[in-house]
């Protein structure tokens, strides 16, 4: 099996396929683990909060992201919507490129105005949710207790996101106290774009050869 940007490991797969009925805590845990170890989601979050200095703003933007991916995660699994995992993960890579370029003021420079950043986060949140749904659907887990289990998985995703975000925020807030933050902000966002491009290349190659 090709490695997805954040596939679900074998032990988890065995659990998911063997599971019957409602299992809140295991699904919560899988969701959280998925987010904490999902470097593509994390890179996007780094991009989103890079220039957010106030906790209130972080909260608002992360809520938009959460709203977006919760909607499509629930919709995707409940409607059994199958989206090609490579394409979705390539779009997630693209969301990182977008955010990195946006952080450099690229859109404002090119277009003369700033595209709505909250809308962008919401829209990319929707794609990230389809990615999560696709990952969850790769496993034929029981329909018994489906809704409760997806809700638990989604809650776990938020929990994992919150945990990961706490560490990212601590690190970035610490870095902001130094001059190097602004001096290296251009390089950092260029690196972010590069990371996103690598994900796009990685996933599109998988799409064509996988």
């Amino acid at each position: 099996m090709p490695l997805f940007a954040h596939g679900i490991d074998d032990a988890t797969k065995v659990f998911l396929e063997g599971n019957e009925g409602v299992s809140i805590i295991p699904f919560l845990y899988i969701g959280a683990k998925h987010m904490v170890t999902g470097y593509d989601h994390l890179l996007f979050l780094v991009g989103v909060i890079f220039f957010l200095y106030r906790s209130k703003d972080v909260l608002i933007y992360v809520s938009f992201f959460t709203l977006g991916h919760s909607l499509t995660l629930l919709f995707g699994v409940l409607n059994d919507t199958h989206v090609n995992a490579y394409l979705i993960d390539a779009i997630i890579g693209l969301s990182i490129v977008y955010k990195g370029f946006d952080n450099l003021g690229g859109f404002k420079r090119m277009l003369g105005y700033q595209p709505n950043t909250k809308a962008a986060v919401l829209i990319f949140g929707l794609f990230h949710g389809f990615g999560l749904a696709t990952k969850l659907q790769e496993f034929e887990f029981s329909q018994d207790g489906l809704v409760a289990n997806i809700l638990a998985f989604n809650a776990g995703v938020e929990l994992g996101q919150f945990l990961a975000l706490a560490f990212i925020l601590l690190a970035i807030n610490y870095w902001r106290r130094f001059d190097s933050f602004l001096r290296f902000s251009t390089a950092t966002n260029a690196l972010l774009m590069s990371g996103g491009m690598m994900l796009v290349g990685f996933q599109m190659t998988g799409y064509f050869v996988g």
Partner: protein
Amino acid sequence: MQQTDLPVQSARTLIKATLGAAILAAITLTTIILPAEYNIDPTGIGGALGLTELNTEAVATAVPEQVEREGQEFEYRSDSVIIEVPAGKGLEYKLHLAKHGHMEYEWTAENGQLYLDFHGEPTGDTTGYFESFAIATATEMSGSLTTPFDGSHGWYWKNQSDQAVTITLKTKGFYSVIGLKQ
């Protein structure tokens, strides 16, 4: 609020950052990520770094056609014979294998099923003793045999139908052919 707080870089910086990002991504993809993840290695660098190993399918250790087995009395050989079992008749086809001799076999019956007894008779035995390895009614069978004793080993096939059945038998291993016994 945050909408306008993003520092806007000069066009020159933007181009440099974007091009730099693309070049770095292209280099990393072609030399590291694609070799490691998909075994696609256009530059050969991934292979040199040992990264393509990560994605090489566990290549089944090729079984050499000529198996070196110690202490085999006979030379390694492989044979393919076609045997016709007439309607209502039985016959035997035998190979001579030494003690702990090894062979692999597969046979298929072309146009009907056969009663069979796959067995071995120890050399020098006068009591009529034989050891059956398989008794069945089948249209094909494959497997391997490492014999417990020196002797003739093979098949008794009985055609219980009213038309002739053709068997294609393939064997390879350490034996000599005794052949057909009516």
